[in-house]
């Protein structure tokens, strides 16, 4: 079969099993778009800004585990995609991003819409390819999917010069079934001796804790993690990226850890004598000040990426490997071990944890006349019966969603953890809804974040992706304001916009339903009404308490044991404004 480069690209994606491609046309990809036009197998989702394309593909990938695919033109199309690529890179999400490029003979001449995409994306991709020969195009695409989805996943960019896709140059096409690269061998099985040592250390622990992250979700190892944790009876905490990897409503789950984690999770980390980190990378938002991090603990670390091990925190037993088989081996070893976990010590440990839990660090005022954002998330949880896919933007609302919506299943909590990209939530929700049209999809956002990719409301209408936007509107960039309150003596420098749009009208202008909610008693009925409208995107503009802060909090430079808790009498700002 002889095909042009444009046809090869489209056919390769079909042969790879790609369902959706998120993109935006332009000069350098016109041949490609012409090839797309002449087929129906591959569905193209036209976004309104290339950043939206990358986030939508990213949301699709996080929810399904399949790679997200993006198509953008050269120059500004390519640079607009960079934020989304970096977002996926930081959270190890498999994306294949195809960017158009100016024709090979003019590369380097500052041609119209030329930008060095390979150079620009180098630090934020797992790998990138510039296609210089149309006969290598299919193989390059196969390689891109292989690299993006294996090992520690990540985004891969394929930069395709316009002349490579020219319709009059046809070459034989065959999509390779398999591809091998001598310089890339992603399959690693954990070292048996290390796994044995780790199990011995775990069983000898007096105050153990399991600290599991996004690697468990990416490695499809939730089932194994759950079995392992229950078998041992140890407390477990999840990172922001790991939420849902272990059922959050289970009694062994002691909440998220880190900067806005629970008091009990952070105290347990601090006091523990053995930590097993599974698919987590000791991010600075998790560890707090490194010198103060877990002073009494021996650390076991399982990660597929050797570079994640001992990057910031020294570990005692490193295990490089895919978490799923490593956990399977550990489960077998624990079951076969004549030595059992120290029951008495474990009982005392759980008693200590119960004391920390009694602090009730997530309590908030339920009696006031203002809508508390935490209450909205609790109601969202109840209305959706904990079954929704929840995407979020970045800031206070993100932390509240993480704290007050317990996720029992992996891939339900979709947020930009590593890069912290405002504008992520709405396009990501569109990607999730395309993947799971029958599921409830909520985007928890704020009035600042939502405006960063608001144009995708138009995409949501065009492709009939009825999502519910939960806009926690506090008329502030809440997280910025909170830091300014805590560390800059309440000098609220540019964290406030005095021209916030009327979101109800805006939603209506985009063809959706808008609702404004001002009182606590209106929250539940509004959420119920919104989720009952199965075929409409609903924008719930919820006026929340302006001065609410995210608690508890580890402030910059502090350790896990030194958390700032909510003061029962309210925050300083509450008092100032009262």
């Amino acid at each position: 079969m002889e095909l042009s480069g444009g046809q090869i690209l489209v056919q390769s994606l079909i042969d790879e099993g790609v369902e959706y491609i998120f993109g935006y046309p332009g000069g350098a990809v016109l041949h490609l778009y012409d090839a797309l036009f002449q087929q129906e197998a591959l569905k193209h989702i036209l976004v309104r800004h290339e950043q939206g394309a990358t986030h939508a593909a990213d949301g699709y990938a996080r929810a399904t585990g399949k790679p997200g695919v993006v198509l953008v033109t050269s120059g500004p199309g390519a640079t607009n995609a960079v934020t989304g690529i970096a977002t996926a890179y930081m959270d190890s999400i498999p994306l294949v991003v195809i960017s158009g490029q100016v024709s090979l003979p003019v590369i380097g001449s500052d041609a119209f819409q030329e930008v060095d995409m390979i150079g620009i994306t180098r630090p934020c991709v797992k790998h990138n390819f510039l296609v210089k020969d149309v006969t290598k195009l299919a193989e390059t695409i196969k390689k891109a999917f292989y690299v993006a989805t294996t090992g520690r996943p990540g985004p891969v960019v394929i930069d395709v010069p316009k002349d490579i896709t020219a319709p009059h140059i046809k070459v034989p096409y065959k999509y390779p079934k398999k591809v091998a690269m001598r310089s890339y061998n992603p399959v690693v099985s954990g070292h048996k001796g290390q796994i044995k040592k780790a199990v011995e250390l775990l069983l000898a622990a007096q105050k153990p804790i399991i600290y599991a992250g996004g690697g468990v979700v990416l490695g499809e190892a939730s089932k194994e993690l759950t079995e392992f944790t229950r078998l041992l009876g140890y407390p477990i905490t999840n990172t922001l990226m790991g939420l849902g990897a272990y059922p959050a409503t289970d009694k062994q789950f002691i909440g998220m850890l880190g900067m806005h984690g629970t008091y009990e999770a952070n105290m347990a980390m601090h006091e523990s004598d053995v930590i097993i980190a599974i698919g987590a990378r000791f991010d600075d938002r998790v560890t707090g000040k490194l010198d103060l991090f877990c002073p009494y603990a021996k650390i076991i670390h399982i990660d597929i990426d050797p570079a994640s091990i001992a990057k910031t925190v020294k570990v005692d037993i490193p295990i490089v490997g895919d978490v799923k088989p490593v956990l399977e081996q550990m489960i077998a070893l624990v079951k076969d071990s004549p030595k059992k976990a120290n029951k008495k010590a474990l009982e005392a440990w759980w008693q200590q944890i119960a004391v920390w839990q009694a602090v009730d660090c997530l309590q908030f005022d339920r009696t006031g006349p203002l809508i508390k954002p935490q209450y909205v998330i609790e109601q969202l949880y109840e209305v959706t019966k904990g079954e929704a896919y929840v995407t979020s933007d970045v800031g206070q609302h993100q932390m509240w969603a993480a704290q007050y919506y317990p996720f029992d299943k992996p891939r339900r909590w979709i947020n930009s953890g590593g890069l912290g990209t405002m504008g992520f939530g709405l396009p990501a929700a569109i990607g999730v809804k395309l993947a799971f049209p029958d599921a409830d999809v909520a985007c928890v956002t704020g009035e600042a974040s939502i405006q960063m990719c608001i144009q995708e409301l138009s995409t949501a209408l065009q492709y009939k992706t009825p999502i519910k936007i939960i806009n926690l509107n506090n008329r502030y960039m809440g997280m910025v304001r909170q830091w300014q309150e805590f560390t800059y003596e309440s000098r609220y420098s540019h964290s406030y916009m005095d021209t916030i749009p009327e979101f109800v009208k805006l939603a209506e202008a985009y063809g959706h339903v808008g609702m404004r909610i001002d009182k606590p008693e209106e929250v539940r009925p509004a959420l119920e009404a919104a989720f009952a409208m199965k075929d409409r995107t609903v924008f719930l503009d919820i006026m929340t308490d302006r001065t609410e802060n995210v608690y508890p909090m580890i402030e910059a430079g502090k350790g896990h044991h030194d958390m700032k808790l909510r003061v029962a009498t309210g925050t300083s700002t509450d008092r100032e404004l009262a």
Partner: protein
Amino acid sequence: MRHIISILMENESGALSRVAGLFSARGYNIESLTVAPTEDPSLSRMTLVTRGSEEIIEQITKQLNKLIDVVKLIDLAESFHIERELMMVKIKTSPEIRDEIRSMADIFRGKIIDVTPTTYIVEMTGPSEKLDAFIAAVDPETIVEVVRSGPTGISRGEKSLHV
């Protein structure tokens, strides 16, 4: 501590910039870097000299290994190895000092490879410290130009870096 990292990588355009970019992005320092294709033209061999604590060097080697274009690497400083650097020095020569430069070049096993009425070019190979010593021994007033390749190295004995 000083480390010499020897890397076998795909001879692809952009491979060098991936390595250089990694070092600048993560704040590692590069003292020197040399690269050329091997007997297999699809592979390049790069020798990179860097300094850092054991933890930093461990991260550097792990991060380099993560690059898709990197096939294999070793830290030569970890075992017995031979290290050589090429240097060419252009020296201003007056009749009074020509003998002295010649004998100095002999002592350091260098060669004079270009002669004009007013200049010599001395070619020399050896470990970097030897080249440093030669420079230190020559009157700095007379040195016109120094060109150094940066060190490259190879393991002794049976140990080797190959695909």
